[in-house]
Every structure is written in structure tokens, then in C-alpha cells.
């Protein structure tokens, strides 16, 4: 709760900082704000609070999820550099403020106890992202992506809201546990069909936000069009928050109809895994590949949700953490590499741009390799354990239920190796430019940190898992 309040205030403070002549103070100030919110968040560790007449619940799960969100936001902000110093057209204060506000939305989605809170949180997050997607105003691609995202997002929001209304119609409450007791307690007349339809609409809305097939169509276009920094932000924070919300909603309120949504989720999972991974193979742009890869990771995360075992939350947490860190590293390297040789004023995001990276800057190449290996799920990296925990939840649920999903997931993770390794191969085995790439100290620090985290979590996953 404290973190939500403080972040809202810090966002406003950030806007005021924008009046200052010097923009140098913005980046450190924002980092400080996020760090403060992170600390405020930790104060409630091992306490359970319910705020404002059952609107928000904080517990260790909330703190874990929000810590991951704040950590990824911190990392994303730390690698933001192109705006803030160079151009007069950019509005760094606003960007940072909107990022902070969007985190408020994300935290609401993690801790909601009432569907209204979930809806508002989702909207804050989405609206912020529509703006951030279009923030590169002079790029037609960015404009297009923002409008596209907005249109489709509004549509999904409409569906989602309709679903909430139907659920309210069936149960007479927005409160999660009240809905839960309606669903599992079983009213005398039986569960109203309204609830089923409402649940499915809510699911469709949420699946849109986490970009699961067949609601993923916006993802590649929007991720591709948005400024890369915000793509990194979107693909990590939204996913973590979305899955936290999805899991919470489904387990607290709708455990009683597990048979219904389990079917939906397994079907969607298989489709998502297939579409995400197979389409990623044929991309020629690394950024687009990462967009499809984010679709595919939504598929893996869905496995843990669909399995719904006591281990699921920790599996989702670990996977989100591993995925977020690796994705941010990947995008960070992409930002640097792509802007080296712009094509017609646009960053060169093709695979070819990575040729010979190992010679140009070994650190970049190594971080990239580690992050790709982690995303591919190869042992000794965090990504492997993420996949391992997720798969083991499915195994716990039983092969008759999850066998098919598991087979597809394992096969698709092999496909994943192919496209992730293309980047590594380009940077290590191919020759390209030899002009070295320089990095600023903070950037270097972040890359070293994320790489170390990826390997560290791969070696000692239990260090973090004890907290989950």
C-alpha cells in the first residue's frame, strides 16, 4: 500500500522535476524513487494487511510480485539514456512519471481484492503504455503502434469490463472472496450461466493483456513499433502483473469451476506456444523475434496457471523473474547495437546488425549470449529453472491433464533454441563491422548485474525461492 501511494506521489514529483533546467537530475531521481518504493514495499514483509474495506490485500506474495515489477522497472529506467540529454523534443520527465504511474497500476493488479481495483489497475497500466508506445512522435511506426494498441486494447477492455459486469450480475459482488464463496459454495439454484460467460470474457480480456494466442495479434506490431526501451518495459512489467492478476483471480474466485477454465487455458497455452515459437523462427528482425518470444513465454507461464498446484505461484514468480531479467538484458543490448548503424534514420534491428558483436564489444556479446541462453532455458541459467519449475507444476497436476501441453512445451522449447541461438551465432561466429561499441558506466553496470543475476539464479535458484 505504501508503495502504491509513494509511487503516485513520486510520479507527480517527477513531473515537477521536469521544470528544472538541468535534466541530469531526472534519471537518478527516478531511480531513487523506485528504490524508495521498493524499500517501502519490503516493510510489510511477513505481514498480512487488507486495506480500505477489502480493496487491496498485501502479503508476501504481493511483495514478491511487486518486487519483481519494481526491479524490472528499475533496470529499464537505468538503461534509458537516449532521452534526457540530447534532444529538446523529448519529455523525459513525463516519460518517467508515466512509467511510475504505470507501476502503480501494475501493483494494483497484483494486490487487488476487488474486481474494480483490478480494472482500474489494468487501465492505468494500459493507458500509460498506449502513451509510451506512441512517445516517439516523429516515427510513423510508433504512432501506428500506439493507435493500434489503443484500439485493440480498448476493445479488450470492453470485453473485460463486460465480463466483470456479468460476474457481478451472477454473484452480486465485486469482492474476490465473495465471488469465490458463491462459486464454490454453490448457491441453491446452481451457478448462474452468467458467471460462466462473464468468466470467459474476463479471461479473454486478461489473455489479451498478457498476449496469449489468439489474442496476441497486437503484440508483434506494437512491440516492433514502440521505442525499444518501452518494448522492454511492456514485455516484462505487463507480463508479470498480468500473470499475477490472472493467477490471483482464477485461484481465489474461480477455484470452484477449475474444470471450465482449465480447458480454456490449456487450449490457449498450446496455441500460444505453437504460434509464438514457430512464428519467431522466421523473423528477420531481432526485435520482432523478441516480440514473438514474449508471446511464447506467455505460453510457458500459462502452464503454471493452468496447473494450479501449490507450487504454481512460486513457479510463476521465478519464471517471471528469470524472463524479465533476461529480456531486459536482451533489449538493452539490442538498443545499443541497433543504433550503431541506422538504416534510413531507423535503428537497424536485423540479425545482421549483430554480426561480429563479440569483437566489437565482448561484454555486450556475452550478456546477450547469457540472456538468450536463459530465455532458451539451458541449464546453469535462471531460465532453465524457470522452465523446470513451470514444467514440474504441470507434472504435479498429472500427465493425463497436462501431458499434451507438456509435450508441446518441451518441443517448442527446442524450437526456441533455434531462434535464440541465431543471435549468439551472429555475434560470435559471423564477421561484421569491427568498429568497437562504447558503453556508459551505468549501462555497463546494469548489464553486468543482469548477467550475474541470470547466472547466479541459475546456480543457486534456492536462494530466491526460499522467499517465494
Amino acid at each position, binding site marked *: 500500500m505504501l508503495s502504491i501511494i509513494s509511487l503516485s506521489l513520486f510520479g507527480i514529483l517527477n513531473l515537477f522535476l521536469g521544470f528544472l533546467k538541468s535534466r541530469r537530475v531526472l534519471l537518478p531521481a527516478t531511480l531513487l524513487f523506485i528504490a524508495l518504493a521498493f524499500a517501502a514495499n519490503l516493510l510489510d514483509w511477513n505481514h498480512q494487511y487488507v486495506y480500505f474495506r477489502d480493496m487491496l490485500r498485501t502479503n508476501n506474495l504481493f511483495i514478491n510480485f511487486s518486487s519483481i515489477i519494481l526491479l524490472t522497472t528499475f533496470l529499464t529506467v537505468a538503461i534509458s539514456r537516449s532521452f534526457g540529454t540530447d534532444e529538446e523534443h523529448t519529455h523525459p520527465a513525463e516519460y518517467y512519471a508515466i512509467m511510475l*504511474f504505470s507501476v502503480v497500476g501494475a501493483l494494483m493488479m497484483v494486490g487487488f481484492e476487488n474486481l474494480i481495483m483490478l480494472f482500474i489497475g489494468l487501465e492505468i497500466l494500459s493507458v500509460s503504455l498506449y502513451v509510451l508506445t506512441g512517445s516517439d512522435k516523429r516515427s510513423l511506426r510508433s504512432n501506428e503502434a500506439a493507435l493500434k494498441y489503443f484500439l485493440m486494447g480498448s476493445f479488450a477492455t470492453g470485453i473485460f469490463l463486460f465480463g466483470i459486469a456479468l460476474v457481478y450480475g451472477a454473484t452480486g459482488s465485486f469482492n474476490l472472496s465473495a465471488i469465490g464463496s458463491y462459486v464454490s459454495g454453490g448457491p441453491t439454484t446452481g451457478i448462474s450461466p452468467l458467471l*460462466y460467460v462473464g468468466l470467459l470474457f474476463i479471461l479473454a480480456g486478461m489473455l489479451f493483456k498478457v498476449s496469449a494466442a489468439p489474442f496476441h495479434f497486437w503484440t508483434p506490431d506494437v512491440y516492433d513499433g514502440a521505442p525499444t526501451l518501452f518494448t522492454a518495459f511492456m514485455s516484462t512489467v505487463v507480463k508479470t502483473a498480468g500473470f499475477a492478476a490472472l493467477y490471483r483471480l482464477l485461484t481465489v474466485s474461480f477455484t470452484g469451476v477449475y474444470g471450465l477454465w482449465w480447458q480454456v487455458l490449456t487450449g490457449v497455452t498450446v496455441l500460444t506456444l505453437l504460434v509464438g515459437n514457430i512464428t519467431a523462427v522466421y523473423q528477420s528482425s531481432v526485435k520482432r523475434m523478441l516480440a514473438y518470444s514474449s508471446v511464447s513465454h506467455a505460453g510457458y507461464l500459462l502452464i503454471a496457471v493452468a496447473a494450479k498446484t501449490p507450487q504454481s505461484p512460486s513457479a510463476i514468480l521465478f519464471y517471471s523473474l528469470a524472463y524479465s531479467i533476461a529480456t531486459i538484458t536482451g533489449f538493452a543490448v539490442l538498443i545499443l547495437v541497433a543504433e550503431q548503424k541506422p538504416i534510413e534514420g531507423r535503428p537497424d534491428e536485423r540479425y545482421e546488425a549483430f554480426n561480429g558483436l563479440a569483437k566489437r564489444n565482448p561484454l555486450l556479446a556475452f550478456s546477450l549470449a547469457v540472456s538468450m541462453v536463459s530465455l532458451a532455458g539451458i541449464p546453469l541459467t535462471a531460465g532453465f529453472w524457470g522452465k523446470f519449475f513451470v514444467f514440474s507444476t504441470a507434472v504435479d497436476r498429472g500427465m493425463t491433464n497436462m501431458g499434451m501441453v507438456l509435450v508441446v512445451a518441451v518441443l517448442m522449447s527446442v524450437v526456441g533454441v533455434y531462434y535464440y541461438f541465431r543471435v549468439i551465432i551472429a555475434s560470435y561466429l559471423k564477421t561484421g563491422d569491427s568498429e568497437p561499441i562504447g558503453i556508459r558506466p551505468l549501462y555497463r553496470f546494469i548489464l553486468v548485474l543482469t548477467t550475474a543475476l541470470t547466472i547466479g539464479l541459475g546456480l543457486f535458484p534456492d536462494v530466491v525461492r526460499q522467499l517465494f
Partner: protein
Amino acid sequence: MNVNYIWYFLTFLTLVSAIMVVVVRNPIHSVLYLILTFFCISAHYVLLNAQFLAAVNVIVYAGAIMVLFLFVIMFLNLREYTAESKTNLVKLGAAVLGGVLLVIIVAALRSMQIEPLNKATYNSQVGMVESLGKVLFRDYLLPFELITVLFFVAMVGAVMLGKRETGERNF
């Protein structure tokens, strides 16, 4: 006169005007039909004993938002929607899909039982401003406050994106 007849009439009017919004070619007519739809819905609210909501719906949607729509349409001078942009096939596809969805939902909901109103316990004040205010500022205080963040983001974003920059291309 039985209230039921009013309800049937209103519902019929709502559906017809909603369909007309989609069907008519002239965007201004379309907006006018939309306003009619909103009025019908407001009338439904009244029937449901939600007077405040009915008023707000008229003021905000039929009033403010629709005027904005009209402004935009007039600014852009979209008198007639470009004809070739929607072929019959598009319409057919959309209509079939919408029809299928409708059939599915109706079929799914047909077994639904609606409990009749219990006149003894019914609180006639439920839709009034007072009870609404109590709920909003007591139970839903937190979402009410946090929604400001949403508006704030929307506002900042709109200003930021809408502001014309030097060197930016004009449409």
C-alpha cells in the same frame, strides 16, 4: 398502462437505433442515432430505479462525449464515409461473426433463472444519489482515489502526444 409495454418499446427502440448507428452511411446520422441509443438506455435506467445514473448518462455520454464526436466529424469533414472502404463481404463477415456470437451467448444463457424481486426487502432508495455517494466514498474510496492516477496519466499523455513539436510533420 403496464410498465412492461414501455420496456418492450424502449428495448425495441434501443436495438433499432443501435443497429442504425452501424448501418447508416452518413457519420453525422450515425452519431445522432447513437445519441438516441443513449437516451433509450437512460430511460432503461429510470425503469430500473437508477435515476442518478440515468441523468449522468445523458449529461456525460449524450451530452459531452457525443458533442465531441460531432465536432471531430465536422472538423475532418467526413460527410460521407468513403464508399469502397466497406465491401459487402466485410459486412457479411462481420455480420455472420456477430450473429454467431449472439447465438452462442443467447444459447448459453437461455437456461438462466432470474429471481423475482422481493417487494418486502426492496430498498427503493438504492439508485439515489445519497446511497450511491455513501457506497462510493465509503466502500469504494480507494478505487475512487486511484482513478485520479488514471485520469492524470491520460491527461499528461494527451498533452504530451498532442503538443506540436518543431520539426514535426503535420498531417
